[in-house]
């Protein structure tokens, strides 16, 4: 039973997530008494669950990439997923917006609920789902189009073309890119630096005003300055959006996230709790070994 070593918040302390309804349960104990890590000052109370997985298994052909993953991701907070490479972090992220559908070999079992609806139900259109859940990838991947067209892409797809200029400007401002590119909106997105490209990708994702933004190691291909810009940006985005971020960089997770989920090899979710708790005092020994670098 791999579930035995999963420690989720319901055995933990400050936030209680019930799963049986959509109601948000307030356990207004802020995490401040526990160790508040980094600059994150968002309170961890008064939230409701946006994404919830129940006993999620994912297979690629015959190999299992995720085992029995159960997790509840709270609204308007930054949830980090950490773990050694190959442990299934990206796989989990791709389950949320059904990007795994694009991989022929992938098979998903179990439930994954978004706003209480199982996204793997037959009546869920993955395209409609992805319009509500934005995604940012590891390698910045702007389209070989102009900066403007990159940001407008999602809006045009959905036919939401009224006030396009304003929406593009707003998204670029939110992504902290407007000042750098406002005079070159017609130039190719590929002419930007790596960090700017990644912020452009973030602007592209938020232009359609999604509810959740998934980020798969968004800073791992960037230099330290660009990385810290992205981290600041994530911090601001969490005011308006639910952010789920995969990172292999534990300091980064500690700095920017409110909640941290630790996956370990074999695709198990070993522990999920407030970031402070995970980094200061994890329940699970293997997590402690991993956090302190003893884990191979």
């Amino acid at each position: 039973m791999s579930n035995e070593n999963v420690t989720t918040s319901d055995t933990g302390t400050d936030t209680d997530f019930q799963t049986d309804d959509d109601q948000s349960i307030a356990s207004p104990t802020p995490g401040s008494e526990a160790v508040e890590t980094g600059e994150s000052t968002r309170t961890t109370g008064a939230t409701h669950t946006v994404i919830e997985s129940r006993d999620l298994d994912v297979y690629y052909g015959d190999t299992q990439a995720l085992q029995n993953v159960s997790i509840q991701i709270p609204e308007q907070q930054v949830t980090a997923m950490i773990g050694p490479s190959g442990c299934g972090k990206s796989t989990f992220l791709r389950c949320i917006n059904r990007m795994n559908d694009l991989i022929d070999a992938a098979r998903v079992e179990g439930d994954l609920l978004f706003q209480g609806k199982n996204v793997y139900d037959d009546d869920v259109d993955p395209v409609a789902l992805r319009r509500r859940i934005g995604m940012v990838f590891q390698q910045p991947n702007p389209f070989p189009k102009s900066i403007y067209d990159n940001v407008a892409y999602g809006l045009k797809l959905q036919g939401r073309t009224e006030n396009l200029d304003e929406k593009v400007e707003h998204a670029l401002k939110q992504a902290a890119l407007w000042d750098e590119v406002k005079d070159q909106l017609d130039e190719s997105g590929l002419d930007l630096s790596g960090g700017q490209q990644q912020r452009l990708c973030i602007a592209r994702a938020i232009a359609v005003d999604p509810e959740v933004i998934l980020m798969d190691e968004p800073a791992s291909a960037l230099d330290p300055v660009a990385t810290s810009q992205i981290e600041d940006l994530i911090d601001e985005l969490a005011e308006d959006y639910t952010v789920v971020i995969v990172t292999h960089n534990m300091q980064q997770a500690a700095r920017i996230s409110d909640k941290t989920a630790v996956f370990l090899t074999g695709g198990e979710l070993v522990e999920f709790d407030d970031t402070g708790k995970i980094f200061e005092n994890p329940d699970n020994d293997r997590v402690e070994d991993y956090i302190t670098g003893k884990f191979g």
Partner: protein
Amino acid sequence: MATETPGRDESWYGAGEEVDRIRGAAFKWACLGATLFGISMVFVLLLYVAVDAIRPFSADAGWYLAVGLAAVVPTVALLAYYVRRDREAGWVGATATALPAFCLLVGSGVAILVIEVFPPHEWFAVVPALGAVVAVWAVHQRVRPDPVEFERFGVVALAALVAFVGVPGAVPSLEAALQSALLWLNWPTMMLYSFAGPIALATGILIARRHESRRAGAVATTLTFAAGVVSILLAPAVGVDDYLLVVVALSVAVPTALYAESVLRSGENVSGLALPVVAYVGIAVAAVVVETYGFTGPAAWLDWEFLTEPHSRFPQRAGIYPALVGSIMMMLVIVVSAFPVGVAAALYLEEYAPDNGATGRVVSIIEMNIGNLAGVPSVVYGLLGLALFIRYADMNTGSVVVGGLTVGLLILPIVIISAQEAIRAVPDSMRQASYGMGATRWQTVRNVVLPEAIPGILTGTILAFGRAIGETAPLLMIGAAAVVFNAPGAFTEQFSAMPRQIFAWSSEPSAEFRHGVLAAGVVTLLVVLLSMNAAAILIRNRYQRR
């Protein structure tokens, strides 16, 4: 310390040549030899043919002196300068020089189509037909901003059908009525309205976008249209029919001017623009000098007469014109048939077909066999065309459509494979980004995959068309005529193509045919082929340098 190690070989650094490189060197030289041998064989052959076609030794020394001093020496000197000092400018110069020549070929091709297939009044009829379709589209958009699936497509397609079947039939009968109205309709003005007009508009729109200025666009439109008018007025002096000169002149002038404008505007490598000026002014000066001093140039087999006359019993008068027209028309059929089918097939195989499971296996078997089809000998395709189009579908033996469709089938596998390669080269991260934004597959293909893949698809496809234009065996099988004296006036008429005509000349008894005329035909074919390849290279370079 190393020096103290007992038994250490002093010459560890290889001075004793204990590392054997003889075999490697021998292999390298053998490879070089093979390369040189192969290339020089092809080169010598081409040179031989070119000498036969042009007969360079029949010209005056004065002619060589004039051409050499006025055109060749300055151009070569300038090229040498670019190679040593400024390669980027050299590339710009080469493009700016090649572009007009290339456009001249394309423009002549269009002009030939106007002469033989679409006379000006039919061409003219297309414009109101298109206008009607656009108007229907615009009205429909206004009336029903949120159409149901395929509604707009259906409406526009219907409008197109009605317009293109109805209007061209109606215009010739309306001609008299229209003529008495204000438009002074005759062939040159028809081409002015229906060829120069749309081109001027398109140029204006392009310039307006580039400069973000409507005024610049308006100026460009006016200039382009004025150039059309001027070319009609100058036609008697040039000695070309006025309605054709508009076509050729604008085909050359507009792309060249646009390219020069873009170079000037970017302000980089502007010095490259000196090359076309030097080259073409040099040629003009040489022509004037030759004319005034009465030098005789080479008595080439490949001359204006050869290009504009049909075959004749007398080698001096024999030409390739009907076969040239046949080849162009056949190309048109090939492009219209093989290109869309091939690209669609490639898109399906790359973007839609599953990779796994039973269907995936069927798909991979199909893909493998497309590769095999690309290797099937062309005679077999000829047989296929004979059976399919002539015996079964009962089309005219040796007609342009049959030839085009047969050769289209022949290159279809190549088109599919090269399009597949171009589509596969679109990075997967682009598709991921698009799907991640909530794009459907169709939206992803249309907005991301196709725009990225189109240059590669075009490059590969043009090379395939190059192969098509030289195919001979299928034409023999489907009964293309060895010799026709009149160019085909419709796609259902019997035709001959350049390679077929060349093949026919090769069995003429007279040596003048077998050497001179044949060589001229080969050179014509090669020029067409090379210019197609040049187009492919231009497209590729243009998009790679982004």
